C-alpha cells in the first residue's frame, strides 16, 4: 500500500516538473526570434555598457555628446568614458578594440557639413562583432540637436525595442512681474522659446494627444478663460469663459472635448466641455472643492482632487461621472494627479512634513512611492513612455522645472536659475 502511493507521489512530481518545463519552453517562444539587449520591463540590474565614439568630420563631438546625455538619462546604459577608447573615430570598427574596454555596443559616425549636415551613423554589436544598422541623416545645421536626438532614438529602438523620447518637448509657464507666459523647450531644457501667449496669471498647459494643440487657463481682464493654442493654425482661441474661476484640465483622446473645473456655480466642480457644440456637462456635485481632473490614456476614467471628505484627496470616476472612488488615504493633502500614458501609474503631489512631494501610485491607490524629498515639489507630468516625470521644485530657491526617472532617480533642473518656471507638461510625442 505504502509503496503504491509513493510511486503515485513520484509520478505527480514528475508531471508537475514536466508541466513547468513546458510552460517555460512556450513562454520563451515569444522572444525566440529577437536577441534581448535590454529588457525594458525587467528591473535594470545591469546597465548595457555602450561606447559612443567621437564622430569623424566637423562637429565631431557635438552630436555624440547629445546622444550620450540622452542614453545616460534613461538609466539603462553605462556610457563609457571616451578617454578609454583605443580606436580612432575615422578608423573602421574592429571588435577587439572595443571588447578590450568592456563595451558591448558601439556607436560610430561621420559628419559632413556642406550647407546641410550629412551624418552617417553605425551601431555595432561588440560581442557578435557585427554592424546592427547603418543610417544616414540630413538636416540644416541649426537642427543639429534634433538630428542627434533622432540618432539616439534609433539606437534606443534597436537596443530596447521601444520608442525613445529624445525628440519630445516640455511646455511650461514662466512668471515675470505682472504677467505669466507660455514657454516651450526640448525635454532636456534646450532650445527654449516663448510662444507669445500670456496673461496676468496662467496655469498648466495640457497637450492634445497628437501634439498639435495646447489647452490652458489664463486670467485676463479680471476673467478666467480657457484657451486653445493651435500650432497648425498658429492661432489662440478662447474656447470657454464665464464667471468664476475656470481651470483647464486634460483634453480627451478626441481633442474636441476636454475636462475642466469651474466655480461658476459656487464651489469648484468638474465639467466636460465640447468645443464644437459648446456643450458643458457637470460631472461632480459635491459641496467640496473638486479640481485638477486628469484623463486616463484610453479616455475612460478621470482622476481628480476633492476635499468632500474633509481634506484634499485623490478620487477616480468614469468619464460620465459615475463610480466615484477615493484612492488616497494616507496623508492630509494629496493633489495634482497626472496619469501615466501607459495607464499603470498616477503621479501626484502629497504633503509630507509640511512640504509637497511627488509620489506615484497604482490607479487603485496601492503601491504609493515617494520620489522627492527636497523643497516643495508640484505639478508632475509623465513622459510619453511613462518612464520619466517632469515637475516643478523650489529646492534651489525659486520655482524651476525639473525632470527625473519615474523611480525618482536622476533628478535635475532644466530651467535656468533666476527665472520662475512651473506647471510643466511633457509632450505626447
Amino acid at each position, binding site marked *: 500500500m505504502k509503496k503504491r502511493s509513493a510511486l503515485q507521489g513520484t*509520478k505527480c512530481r*514528475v508531471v508537475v516538473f514536466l508541466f513547468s*518545463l513546458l510552460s*517555460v*519552453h512556450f513562454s*520563451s*517562444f515569444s*522572444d*525566440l526570434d*529577437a*536577441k534581448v*539587449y535590454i529588457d525594458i520591463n525587467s528591473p535594470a540590474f545591469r546597465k548595457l555598457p555602450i561606447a559612443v565614439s567621437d564622430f569623424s568630420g566637423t562637429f565631431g563631438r557635438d552630436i555624440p555628446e547629445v546622444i550620450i546625455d540622452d542614453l545616460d538619462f534613461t538609466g539603462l546604459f553605462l556610457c563609457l568614458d571616451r578617454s578609454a577608447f583605443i580606436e580612432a573615430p575615422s578608423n573602421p570598427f574592429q571588435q577587439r578594440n572595443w571588447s578590450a574596454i568592456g563595451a558591448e555596443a558601439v556607436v560610430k559616425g561621420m559628419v559632413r557639413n556642406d550647407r546641410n549636415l550629412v551624418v552617417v551613423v553605425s551601431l555595432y*554589436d561588440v560581442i*557578435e562583432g*557585427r*554592424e*546592427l544598422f*547603418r*543610417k*544616414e*541623416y*540630413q*538636416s540644416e545645421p541649426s*537642427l543639429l540637436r*534634433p538630428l542627434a536626438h533622432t540618432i539616439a532614438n534609433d539606437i534606443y529602438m534597436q537596443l530596447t525595442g521601444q520608442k525613445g523620447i529624445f525628440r519630445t518637448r516640455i511646455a511650461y509657464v514662466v512668471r515675470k512681474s505682472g504677467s505669466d507666459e507660455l514657454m*516651450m523647450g526640448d525635454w532636456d531644457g534646450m532650445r527654449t522659446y516663448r510662444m*507669445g*501667449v500670456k*496673461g496676468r*496669471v496662467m*496655469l*498648466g498647459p495640457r497637450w492634445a494627444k497628437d501634439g498639435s494643440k495646447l489647452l490652458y487657463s489664463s486670467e*485676463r*481682464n*479680471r*476673467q*478666467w478663460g480657457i484657451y486653445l493654442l*493651435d500650432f497648425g493654425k*498658429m492661432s*489662440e482661441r478662447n474656447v470657454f469663459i464665464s464667471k468664476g*474661476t475656470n481651470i483647464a484640465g486634460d483634453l480627451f483622446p478626441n481633442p474636441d472635448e476636454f475636462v475642466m*473645473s469651474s*466655480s461658476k456655480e459656487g*464651489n*469648484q466642480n468638474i465639467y466636460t466641455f465640447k468645443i464644437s457644440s459648446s456643450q458643458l456637462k457637470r460631472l461632480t456635485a459635491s459641496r467640496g*472643492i473638486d*479640481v*485638477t481632473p486628469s484623463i486616463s490614456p484610453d479616455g475612460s476614467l478621470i482622476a481628480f*482632487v476633492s*476635499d468632500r471628505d474633509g481634506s*484634499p484627496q485623490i478620487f477616480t470616476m468614469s468619464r460620465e461621472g459615475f463610480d466615484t472612488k477615493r484612492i488616497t488615504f494616507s496623508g492630509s*493633502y494629496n*493633489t*495634482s494627479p497626472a496619469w501615466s500614458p501607459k495607464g499603470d501609474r498616477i503621479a501626484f503631489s502629497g504633503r509630507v512634513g*509640511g512640504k*509637497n512631494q511627488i509620489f506615484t501610485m497604482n490607479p487603485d491607490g496601492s503601491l504609493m512611492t515617494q520620489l522627492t524629498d527636497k523643497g*516643495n515639489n*508640484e505639478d508632475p507630468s509623465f513622459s510619453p513612455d511613462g518612464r520619466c516625470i517632469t515637475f516643478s521644485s523650489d529646492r534651489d530657491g525659486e520655482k524651476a522645472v525639473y525632470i527625473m526617472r519615474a523611480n525618482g532617480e536622476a533628478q535635475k533642473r532644466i530651467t535656468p536659475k533666476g527665472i520662475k518656471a*512651473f*506647471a510643466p507638461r511633457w509632450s505626447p510625442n
Partner: protein
Amino acid sequence: MKNLFVAVTVMLALSLSGCAKKQVAGPTEMQQPTAAEQQVKKAPEKITEEKVAKVETKELPSKVEEISGMFEDILFDFDRYDIREDAKPVLKKVSDHLIKNTAQGILIEGHCDERGTSEYNLGLGDRRAKATRDYLVSLGVPSSRIEMISYGKEKPFCNEHTEECWAKNRRSHFVIMKGKM
C-alpha cells in the same frame, strides 16, 4: 517507469535546445546579413521641424476704472475661509461705502499663501471671496454690485517663506469698480 524517464529526458533536451537557439539569433534577421547587403543604405532621413507657432496675445483695455487700496485686506486663518472678528470693522466700512456710492461696484479677490498646490488653492481663494461677499450681502450690499475672482496662491502680497508673510497672503483684497461692470 523507464518510459517515463525517457520521456522526461527527451522533454528536457527539447527545452534546453530551445533556450540555446534564443541566444544565437540576431535582433533582426535570423541569418547574418552579407557584406553586400550591409552596403545597401536606406534612404537618408531628413530631419525637419515645423516652424514655431508664435502668437502675440492682445489684452483688450478694460472698460472699468479700478481703484485699489481704498480698503485694507481682510485676513484668514490657514486652510480656513470663515470671516474673522478682526475683519468685521473693515467689512463694515466697505458696505457703508457701497451703500452710499450706488454707482460703484466692488471686486473681491480671494488669495492664499504659497503652501499647497495651485489649483486647489484657486478653489480655496474662491471660498474666501464668496465668504466675504456673503458677509457684505448680509450687511445690505446688493449682490449684483459684487464681483468675485480667485487668484489662489498666484498673486501673493509678499514673497518671503515665513509665517508672517503667509498670514498676509491669506486675504480678501478689495478693488472698487467705477463704470460699467
